[in-house]
């Protein structure tokens, strides 16, 4: 059976626009309180939801970036807080990139891939949610970083 994907594109635009608004509000909350559990949870769930919708429609660039953001937020959730101002800035940049991609969908264009540096920075965190900016207590024997795709 085939689904009417034009209909789902419109729903995607409506829901992802709402979700990006929620991410924006959550980031503003995190700017004030970097350990806001509610804001961290909201950001995680919104990234997860955008990923699932985008994957359903074949918007791979959106799904990939949202997935990286979701993984990053999993680390933040484990740590219980956004771990540095740099990490907060990275989350804001991710939001900006996702907004650009959704705008492209709205213009009926194929969203461009997120820039490699952003994707790489999102992936830079310990699997245990350790502060990516902190020095490793065991810089020699650490496991290689893993990114789920």
């Amino acid at each position, binding site marked *: 059976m085939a689904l009417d994907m034009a209909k789902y594109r419109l729903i995607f635009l409506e829901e992802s626009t709402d979700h990006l608004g929620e991410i924006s509000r959550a980031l503003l909350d995190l700017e004030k309180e970097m350990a806001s559990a509610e804001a961290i949870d909201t950001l995680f*769930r919104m990234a997860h939801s955008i990923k699932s919708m985008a994957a359903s429609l074949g918007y791979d660039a959106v799904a990939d970036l949202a997935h990286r953001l979701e993984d990053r937020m999993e680390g933040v959730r484990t740590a219980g807080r956004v771990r540095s101002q740099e990490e907060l800035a990275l989350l804001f940049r991710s939001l900006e990139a996702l907004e650009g991609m959704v705008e492209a969908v709205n213009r009926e264009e194929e969203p461009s891939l997120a820039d490699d540096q952003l994707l790489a920075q999102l992936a830079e965190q310990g699997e245990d949610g350790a502060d990516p900016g902190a020095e490793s207590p065991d810089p020699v024997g650490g496991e290689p970083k893993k990114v*789920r795709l």
Partner: protein
Amino acid sequence: MARVLIADDASFMRQMIREIIEPEGHEVVGEATNGIEAVDLYNELSPELVTMDIVMPKRSGIDAVKSILEQHPTACIVMCSALGQETLVMEALQAGAKDFIVKPFKPDSVIATITKMLEKAD
């Protein structure tokens, strides 16, 4: 044919599941947008099948599964999971969920999973 409760916080996903299963003759008797609503609607509607998202606000899908199965041990619940949620899917299955479907949904696969579950439940 079954009476189905769909639990997912995304309208996108709820509509997609509805559009996949209704042509097969299943009746969507309710839609829940979070884990608390899922438990409440299950108690109210007694559906024969639930499709349960894992990541939802207020109460997760896994918590909702545990709560429903505590009160209704024979409940037939299928989890809706996404990439990277293998651990959570295992937790849900251990809690008593019967099976899972993976996003992005493939209509034929969703129908096959639901049909198989309902046959086993008979």
